[in-house]
């Protein structure tokens, strides 16, 4: 029992800043919009509506990618290719779903192949692209940032070529469900996100995978000498991130029922990295927090919503994002942390002295 208490204490201290930030932003939201927390039920769609739900709904794409990005960053790397993979995933799905104007006059439930393929092929392709990243990094010994830069540059080109540079639209209703449908009164993206987060969390925390990732991220040499296959871990993490980008891409394209190789997933890599960093995982690798990342992603989305309430252009949210992030990274920076840890250590010394 005692140990469990300690554990929550540790996670708490890690998430404190993020939680405080989120609460503050929500409070401001409430002041600006008194009905901010109001959630209503709309019978025509069978869905709950409200700002909070919208925030979580809209943060789905980033949250899903950020799950993989957390592991990548815990290993001490970065994955720049995720945004491009989102575009690739959407392009493939729409290639299969395209509604051909010449044959049909109205958009409807038409596909050129079975629905299963529409979902499986994009995910498999993204998984393979993630594996390609992993190959360059684990076997080729390249820096993650350069290795993933390749697909970041190439990816959108591949997406364009797959669709011949055209923007397809579709009216296929099973596909619409992914991004616009609902389940248990909640928008489908939220359900998908919950499932993904739960699955990743289970995989990472209920097997020893998370510990291995942290171990390799903290000290690769010692991990290897303890018998951990560091290369395999790197492979899996990058493949997983690719796969999750694929899921995110499906949600994105289902929302617009179209493919947009230029703008789909634009800057997602940056947002995902930020979500991870705000969530308390250090860019230098090591201990990570999936819960923190989820919160980080929601914070980013809340800022966007808040700024929107003020009537400021959505692009301008970046400036506010930048300021909040600046505060977080300064608080997390080494000199500042050292200052705090020195004080903490002094206290710890006193305690230890008492024990021995």
């Amino acid at each position, binding site marked *: 029992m005692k*140990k469990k208490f300690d554990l929550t204490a540790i996670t708490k201290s890690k998430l404190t800043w993020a939680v405080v930030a989120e609460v503050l932003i929500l409070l401001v939201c409430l002041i600006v919009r008194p009905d901010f927390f109001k959630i209503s039920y709309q019978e025509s769609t069978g869905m709950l509506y409200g700002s909070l739900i919208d925030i979580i709904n809209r943060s789905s794409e980033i949250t899903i990618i950020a799950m993989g990005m957390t592991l990548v960053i815990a290993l001490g790397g970065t994955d720049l290719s995720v945004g491009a993979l989102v575009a690739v995933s959407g392009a493939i799905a729409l290639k299969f779903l395209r509604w051909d104007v010449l044959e049909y006059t109205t958009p409807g439930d038409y596909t050129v192949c079975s629905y299963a393929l529409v979902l499986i092929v994009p995910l498999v392709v993204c998984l393979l692209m993630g594996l390609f990243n992993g190959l360059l990094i684990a076997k080729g010994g390249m820096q993650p940032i350069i290795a993933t830069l390749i697909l970041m540059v190439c990816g959108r080109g591949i997406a364009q070529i797959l669709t011949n540079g055209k923007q397809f639209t579709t009216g296929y209703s099973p596909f619409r469900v992914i991004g616009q449908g609902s389940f248990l009164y909640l928008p489908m993206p939220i359900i998908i996100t919950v499932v993904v987060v739960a699955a990743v969390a289970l995989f990472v925390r209920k097997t020893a995978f998370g510990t*291995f990732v942290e*171990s390799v991220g*903290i000290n690769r040499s*010692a991990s290897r000498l303890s018998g951990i*296959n560091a290369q395999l871990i790197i492979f899996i993490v990058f493949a997983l991130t690719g796969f999750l980008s694929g899921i995110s891409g499906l949600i994105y394209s289902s929302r617009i029922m179209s493919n947009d190789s230029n703008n789909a997933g634009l800057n997602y890599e940056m947002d995902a990295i930020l979500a991870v960093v705000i969530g308390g995982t250090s860019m230098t690798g090591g201990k990570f927090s999936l819960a923190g990342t989820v919160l980080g992603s929601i914070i980013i989305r809340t800022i966007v919503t808040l700024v929107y309430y003020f009537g400021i252009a959505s692009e301008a949210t970046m400036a506010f994002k930048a300021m909040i992030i600046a505060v977080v990274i300064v608080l997390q920076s080494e000199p500042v942390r050292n200052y705090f840890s020195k004080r903490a250590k002094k206290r*710890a010394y006193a305690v230890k002295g008492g024990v021995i």
Partner: protein
Amino acid sequence: MAENNLLEMRQIEMTFPGVKALNKVDFTLRAGEIHSLLGENGAGKSTLIKCLTGVNKKDGGTITLEGKEIQPQSPQHAIELGISTVYQEVNLCPNLTVAENIFVGRQPMKHGQIDWKTINRRASELMSRFHLSIDVTRPLSYYSTAIQQMVSIARAVDIQAKILILDEPTSSLDDNEVQLLFDVMNELKKEGMGIIFITHFLDQVFAVSDRLTILRNGQLVGTHKIEDITKVQLVTEMIGKDIDTIFSLKRAEVADGEADMLVATHIGAPEKLEDMSLNVKKGELVGFAGLLGSGRTETAEMLFGATRITKGEIAIDGSKTEIKKPFDALVAGMAFCPEDRKRDGIIGDLSIRENIALAVQARKGFLKPISTKEQNELADKYIKALGIATPDAEKKIGELSGGNQQKVILARWMATNPKVLILDEPTRGIDVGAKAEIQRLMLEMCGEGVSVIFISSELDEIIRCSNRIIIMRDREKVGEVDGETCTQDQILSIIAEGSTAAGGEAS
């Protein structure tokens, strides 16, 4: 006080939390002298040098350079005072040219521009002074470590240093290169420079130095003229004979007919280990003696697959095993506590529990997790058995003291129930009590049938614990003695003279 002393360090004291690293050490250096500084790891050599070069600040004592007291604040300040250091790892920029590495930061300028012609010409002149005719416009990384070492020295010489400190410059050089370095050192000596030379190779000490100073456990053992001391005396003073008998240890008992648990035949790899064969019986403790750089660590790393062998083969428990990576060794039933605990042992930010369970988990693969409950049981068991001083198993290993960290690493491997346990300097840098405890644990494991390979710089603990002792020198096995009947002098003379002279000077 001698008048011609270039440098005098008097009563230098230095304390790290919990450890007295230097205890009233005196050291003098004359102009035009090569003075060797000797001692095993942790003796305080590097701490003394760091006080002189301004990396650490001394807690007490005085440093006088040419009669004036100095207080070096930083490496840069020390350089300005005329104290230059050449480190074991070359501290230059590999991407810059040879010439630039000598002059960067103080390039000669002409019309406000860097005067490349002068730089290259002067660099060529400097290198030819060192009998090196190389193209100084090539990047440093293009050349061998020996030449890089020469370039560091050239940089030190060109800034008109009065004192040159060479911190183990020869550990990666071959014989020719060492000779070249010595020629340069002798030339600089003639010019009146004072040189402090740190090395683990005793032959080199005798080949080049005028005087030598020996440190042990942060204390001055003595300063001798080179003519006044023999190698055996030197090694004795370095390693020391004072045996702390807090626990009375009982050597492991091995039956005569016991089968070999580990057999390695003619293993080796280029530039790491020439050739090595050994066998360890079930429940036997084999000690490795030899100075640093003699190949003991390399042997351990090869047995465990941290470095790949290029020849020879390894058999464990009677069956030939191919060990390509540490995981293979782990599966085969081996365990390895590496020498550099911080770099290769601990996962600093993980808890004691996670660190202990790591190797067992690695062997099972991550898909078959050990439940938190089992991990806790494992951790509690070893925290108790090994007496790890911690409030609970969730404390980060990085926050423990050295001795307790070592116990956690030991626990990590004990938890895998190994057949063979390799311990590389498990007792280094930890206090006397913890040292004796680790020795006791080691012998207990032998009693349970584990074969142990024990590497240590401290001869007395090797003699105290080992059934057999393998002696290494110059990346080769040079002798093997029985642990119970051997004497310290016998081993010392083999280390000092090689196998041919064994016993020659021992009397």
